[in-house]
């Protein structure tokens, strides 16, 4: 256990130390300007470092600034307040989860169609790959505007964009997974006189589970990106993407970093949740850990 934690801790401490050093370096020019204006001369090095770590709009905020911003904007604030990061996180999270659910269902359905029908495989698969080369960013504003014109606003457009991004890994993984049973296993099913429905539920579907979970881990992280990206084009709805955008327009670096870290934390928790679901399903299916 210690063998695994020690290296990670070392690297983390190195990163934080490097971060503080870079904060001094990158904030120094502006701090110098401030000190000259305030007629402060010969500031001691330690005090100067602390000044660079406490600017209101630093080029690079220090770690403690970011985390105190997260703390004061989530725990220390009313949850329903529009300035609360928890409120914005919830908006992003709900769109992410809905889009992830859509994407997984769509991906599995497409994969089933692809493995059962040769023509679907040949005609759909190249276009599914091509669809991912279309930058969703480009399509996102139009989906938001277009669905808004039909009367769909809020969570649905964002969820659709998340779906567009997250169905792809599921399709690719599930096609591979549903095809993973070997010929000898399929032959055994034939000797049992199993129909294609039984072959699917009793052989192909269980065999595809590891692939499905691997894909879902990728998919849920991507659908969070999709939700954040969708929010960039719809500033009225709120969400972490909107915090990033307004922070960028107002030069509120601490706000940007706080939103970014929160998004990172949510992504990590979601991936971990899918991972523990995977462990549970594996255990129920009798796999040895």
């Amino acid at each position: 256990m210690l063998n695994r934690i020690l290296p990670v801790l070392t690297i983390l401490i190195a990163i934080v130390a490097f971060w503080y050093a870079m904060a001094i370096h990158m904030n120094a020019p502006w701090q110098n300007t401030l000190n000259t204006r305030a007629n402060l001369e010969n500031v001691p090095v330690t005090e100067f470092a602390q000044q660079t770590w406490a600017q209101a709009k630093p080029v690079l905020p220090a770690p403690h600034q970011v985390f105190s911003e997260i703390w004061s904007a989530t725990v220390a604030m009313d949850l329903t307040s529009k300035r609360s990061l928890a409120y914005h996180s919830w908006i992003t999270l709900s769109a992410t989860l809905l889009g992830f659910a859509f994407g997984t269902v769509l991906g599995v359905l497409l994969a089933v169609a692809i493995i059962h029908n040769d023509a679907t495989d040949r005609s759909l698969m190249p276009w599914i790959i091509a669809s991912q080369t279309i930058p969703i960013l480009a399509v996102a504003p139009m989906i938001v505007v277009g669905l808004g014109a039909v009367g769909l606003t809020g969570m649905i457009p964002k969820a659709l964009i998340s779906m567009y991004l997250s169905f792809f890994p599921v399709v690719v993984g599930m096609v591979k997974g549903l095809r993973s049973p070997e010929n000898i296993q399929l032959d055994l099913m034939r000797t049992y006189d199993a129909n294609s429905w039984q072959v699917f539920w009793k052989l192909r579907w269980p065999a595809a589970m590891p692939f499905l979970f691997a894909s879902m881990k990728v998919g849920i992280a991507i659908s969070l990106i999709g939700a954040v990206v969708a929010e960039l084009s719809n500033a009225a709805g709120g969400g972490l993407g909107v915090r990033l955008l307004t922070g960028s327009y107002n030069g509120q670096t601490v706000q940007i970093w706080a939103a970014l870290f929160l998004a990172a934390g949510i992504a990590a928790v979601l991936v971990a949740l899918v991972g523990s679901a995977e462990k549970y399903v594996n255990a129920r299916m009798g796999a040895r850990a």
Partner: protein
Amino acid sequence: MQKLLASVAGGSAALGLVLSLTSLSAAPLLLIFFIAGALTLIRFKKPLPIWVDGVLMVFGAYALIASLPAEGTMPGHHWLALISAWAFSWLFVEELSTAIRLGKLPHTGTGLVIPTIFGLALLIVWEVITRGAGVPPVLLPSPSAIAARMAAETYILTQDFIQTFIKSVLPGYAIGCLAGLLVAIAVDRSPFLKAGIMPIGNFMSALPIIGIAPIMVMWFGFDWQSKAAVVVAMTFFPMLINTVAGLNAASSIERDLMHTYAANYWQTLMKLRLPAAGPFIFNALKINSTLALIGAIVAEFFGTPVVGMGFRISTGVGRLAIDLVWAEIAVAAVAGSAFYGVIALIERGVTFWHPSVRGGRA
């Protein structure tokens, strides 16, 4: 499946024939299509050759586009013609793939025809629905309108392409992938570094790195440097993780062989382990080729000089110039697919020995 499609194709053609004869309003081309389509129903008595469906598919598409009403909504028999033509193309694709599977047609060549037919059919349905149902161009322009806009704005499109793809994506992609590769080799030498960096690398690759775009714009300014920096950050971690995994791909028996040759670390690396890592490295290169384009376009949402694909898209939506936005999307899609295709071709040449390439389907 084929019987169902055949009856849908022939049946809707027959229904369309009845409808257009009763209302006496159909264009002559559509009438011919309906008659020919309804005649295919005799296939249930006597089998028809494949090319009949292919010809009907092409003719149906032509008749549909040629007889689109100039404005207003399409009459009912027109929609039946759309359904019939779509069913004929699907039927044709089904028959083609069956013929390929049974070995009656060669795989190469015909394998490319099927996705092309699917793509064209999608475009035709899009065109017929947007123009036939009178969808406002602000919501969804027709493919022909987008193509016309592309032809009219080649200068702007080229400028945006150069700014986004040549100036931001390519340098960022090269730097990010190379840095990922080098760090992976360095990490591979030290077990301690590997144990420390890999969990963090896995974690970072799951994060929305797109979010660093506003920070990079603040640090590196509005021009292409900040976009390239975003691309570097996005492409670094997939490359790092894949290369580290790939460097472990050479089996211990192969390494022992190199050991018996008295090969030193660098010789083992260059002659055995890097080549063995090839499929993993190309996997990362392919993933990164689309990630890089997305990253650069997103970064342009956070401030840019007045050129670039992301800039054009974000301002185009604001000015309701949706056909220009779609033109940019088309350019981005073609550029992204071509980039991916080039990497895949190089992969075939370099890792020709790998089972996934030898199998013919990469």
